[in-house]
C-alpha cells in the first residue's frame, strides 16, 4: 500500500526500511518529513487541525504517486499524510522514495511533495493567539508545481 491517511504518528524509519526491504537494486533512499512550524505568517501557532476530503484523498495521492513512478526511474514510493489535531513539531507528512540512483529519487520525492501541496485535498486550520483561521495557500507552492509541467 503506497499511500495512507491516518490520525496517528508514523515511523519514518520503519516505512523507509519496509520500502527498500529485499530490494538490492536500491542505491538511494530519499525521505521527506513535513513538520508543524510554531510560527506562520508571523503569528505563533498553538495547534493545527488538518481536514481532508475522505474518498478523494487516497485517490489523489495514488494519482500523484503513479505519476511520479511514470516520470522517474524509481523503485518504490510511499506517502503518509496525517489528519486531525497536531501541535508544533509534529510530523504531518512523509514521502519516501527508493531508487537505483539518487537523481531520480530526489526528483520523484520533490515532485510528490510539490504536487501534493497543490492537488491533494488537505486543509490546515490554525489556532493562534488571535483566534482560529484557515491557512492560505502559498503562491510559492503553485510555482513549485508549475516547474514540473
Amino acid at each position, binding site marked *: 500500500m503506497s499511500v495512507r491517511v491516518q490520525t496517528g504518528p508514523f515511523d519514518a524509519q520503519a516505512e523507509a526500511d519496509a520500502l527498500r526491504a529485499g530490494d538490492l537494486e536500491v542505491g538511494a533512499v530519499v525521505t521527506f518529513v*513535513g513538520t508543524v512550524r510554531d510560527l506562520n505568517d508571523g503569528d505563533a501557532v498553538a495547534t493545527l487541525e*488538518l*481536514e*481532508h*476530503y475522505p*474518498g*478523494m484523498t487516497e*485517490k*489523489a495521492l495514488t*494519482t500523484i504517486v503513479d505519476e511520479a513512478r511514470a516520470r522517474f526511474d524509481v523503485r518504490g514510493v510511499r506517502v503518509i*499524510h496525517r489528519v486531525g489535531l497536531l501541535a508544533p513539531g509534529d510530523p*504531518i*507528512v512523509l514521502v519516501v522514495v527508493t531508487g537505483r540512483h539518487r537523481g531520480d529519487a530526489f526528483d520523484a520525492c520533490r515532485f510528490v*511533495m510539490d504536487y*501534493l*501541496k*497543490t*492537488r*491533494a*485535498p*488537505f*486543509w*490546515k*486550520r490554525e489556532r493562534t493567539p488571535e483566534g482560529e483561521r*484557515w*491557512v*492560505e*495557500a*502559498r503562491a510559492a507552492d503553485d510555482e513549485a508545481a508549475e516547474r514540473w509541467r
Partner: protein
Amino acid sequence: MMRGAPDSQVSVVRLVYLARLREALGASHERYAVDGATTVGAIRETLRTRGGAWESELAPGRALRVAVNHDLATADTPVAPGDEVAFFPPVTGG
C-alpha cells in the same frame, strides 16, 4: 430543486463543500437537481444566483478548486446525474 422526487436517483448530483468554503456557505453537502448532463461551470454559475455568501464565495475571481468524482476538474468538466461535485479552497496540506 427536486429533492425526494421519484426520479431523484438519476437526475441529481451530490454537491460537497469543504474547509473554509463549508463554513462560509454554512453547508457541507446537498442534493442538487440537474437537467441531464451539465458542466462544473454551469453549476457554479447557478449556485452564485443564490446570492449572499454563495454569490461572493463562488464569484469568478475567487480561487476555487472543484473535483468531480474525486478527480480535479475545470469549468468545462462535464457533470452527469449521480456524480459527486466538490467545491473547495486551494489546498494547504503537506
